[in-house]
């Protein structure tokens, strides 16, 4: 590509890009560093002092562990349901030729509903309908939050399924189900895995909806929120650091190969 920006302009552009990344990543990475510091006062540890004692101490924090178990279970169910529904929604999008824009918007719009408002609305309606707050109500809230993201991921992966493949299969006598199982499914399997992991992480890290919808057993972010405001302790740094690190690694594992594939594929 032609490079006529001039050194100074290019330097300015890279500086701003780096600034954006620093604003996003520096604080949580610093928090992660602090979680390996043996001292009670937050600060970066010296290399010689690195410790995992706060991580080991987490097993003694029964409240955090119970919340983590609840969150993992909710995230698992949410991810399964969101991936399935998003797959149906994406396949429907493929079948709809003229009206697909309207369908695209319908699935995407829940993304823009503020968490507080969706949580409040669902909890008020559940309460009036006599449905007790529980794991299921949180899953209901999280499902709507994760669905649009899973939908976009699966839709993107569906772009590799060429119409001609399906027509060829149909010519050879394959019904719709056979076409899906033998052609579409193998091609979009990576997209389904990505959608599942993304939905899992969105649910695991979701706070404002769970704040309204959780029953007796709160989810991890709700418990963390309470503890963060009641005076943070090193175990909170450790739990936050661990969740952040796991989230980053999961996305990196999924996004890396997915982005590579997209670039390698035919141009849009």
């Amino acid at each position, binding site marked *: 590509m*032609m490079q*006529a920006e*001039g050194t100074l*302009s*290019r330097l*300015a*552009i890279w500086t*701003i*890009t780096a*600034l*954006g990344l620093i*604003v*996003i990543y520096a*604080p*949580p990475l*610093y*928090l992660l560093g602090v979680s390996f510091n043996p001292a009670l*006062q937050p600060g970066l540890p010296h290399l010689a002092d690195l410790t995992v004692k706060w991580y080991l101490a987490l097993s003694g924090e029964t409240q955090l562990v119970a919340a983590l178990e609840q969150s993992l279970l909710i995230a698992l169910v949410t991810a399964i349901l969101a991936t399935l*529904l*998003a797959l*149906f*929604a994406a*396949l*429907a999008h493929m079948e709809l*030729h003229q009206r*697909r824009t309207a369908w695209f*918007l*319908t699935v995407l719009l829940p993304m*823009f*509903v*503020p968490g*507080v*408002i*969706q949580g*409040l*609305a669902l909890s*008020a309606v559940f309460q009036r309908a006599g449905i007790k707050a529980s794991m299921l109500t949180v899953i209901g809230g999280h499902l*709507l939050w994760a*669905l649009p993201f899973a939908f976009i991921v699966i*839709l*993107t992966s569906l772009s590799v399924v060429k119409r001609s493949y399906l027509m060829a299969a149909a010519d050879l006598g394959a019904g719709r189900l056979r076409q899906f199982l033998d052609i579409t499914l193998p091609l979009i399997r990576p997209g389904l895995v990505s959608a599942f992991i*993304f939905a899992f992480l*969105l649910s695991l*890290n979701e*706070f404002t909806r769970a704040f309204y919808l959780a029953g007796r057993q709160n989810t991890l*972010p709700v418990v*963390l*929120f309470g503890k*963060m*405001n009641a005076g943070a302790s090193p175990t909170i740094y450790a739990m*936050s650091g661990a*969740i*952040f690190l796991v*989230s*980053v690694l999961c*996305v*990196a594992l999924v996004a*890396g190969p997915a*982005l590579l594939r997209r*670039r390698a594929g035919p141009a849009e």
Partner: protein
Amino acid sequence: MNRSLLPALGLAALPLLAILALGFVPLMVVVVWSFWSWDPVTYWIRPDMSLAAYVAILDAGRWTVILSTLAKALVTALLCLLIGWPTAYAVHFLAGRRLSLVLLALMTIPFFTSYLIRSFSWRLVLGRTGVINTLLIEAGLIAKPLDWLLFSDFAVVIGLVASYLPFATFPLILSMRRVDPVTMQAARDLGAGFWTMLRTVLVPLTFPGLFAGFLFVFVMVAGSSTEVQMLGGAGASIVTVMINDVMRVANYPLAFAISTVVLVVIFGLVLAGNARFGLARLFGEGGA
């Protein structure tokens, strides 16, 4: 025609049911309930056609919270565009293949990490004993810690930019992918320098991305709560936090009325943006 639509309807049924039952219906119920009035006998609301809750939005300082929410959304969206546009340029035009993939991955990760943890981590950076104050004191630039760094509007806006920057960067990258490089080359051949080319060709051509990025960030900030709860000063508020506060005293009609106003603004903006630029097209999913 109708026959070919059948499989689509069958596939769409379940997701549509979930979206209606968990999203559309509860939100519509909230809109209806915002016109009902509080009944102290049942400790709940009763059917009515009252605008009392909407009138109450206008008093007792609630109006200023709405204004400050709009201000925060505006400032954050502009800052995100100022950082996001050069970032998108770097990703699309400057970076080599591998680096641009790394940058794209780095911009994807924030969507799926905890906004709570990321906001909270700013406390360690901006606090009285945080990184910035410690560095400034060690450098001899200040004698005692700066208090306005944390629990202030300054901290909130930084936290919001950190949270929602990728919502601006992605539409900008997508809009730059749609720019035909020939137009930029033509500008150059006609003697335009880099900055003239930006001003007259590239920025106008990325206007859909700028608009979508602004819209996404604005809408996300209008619905955000965590950043203010973690980083805002005493009495700091934003509409969603105000809804929380109103709910704490069980003032359902008022909470529902504020929610309705926020929903109308957000969906108005998103649908208007869609009508003008086509959100679906931005994701590379053409309408036809």
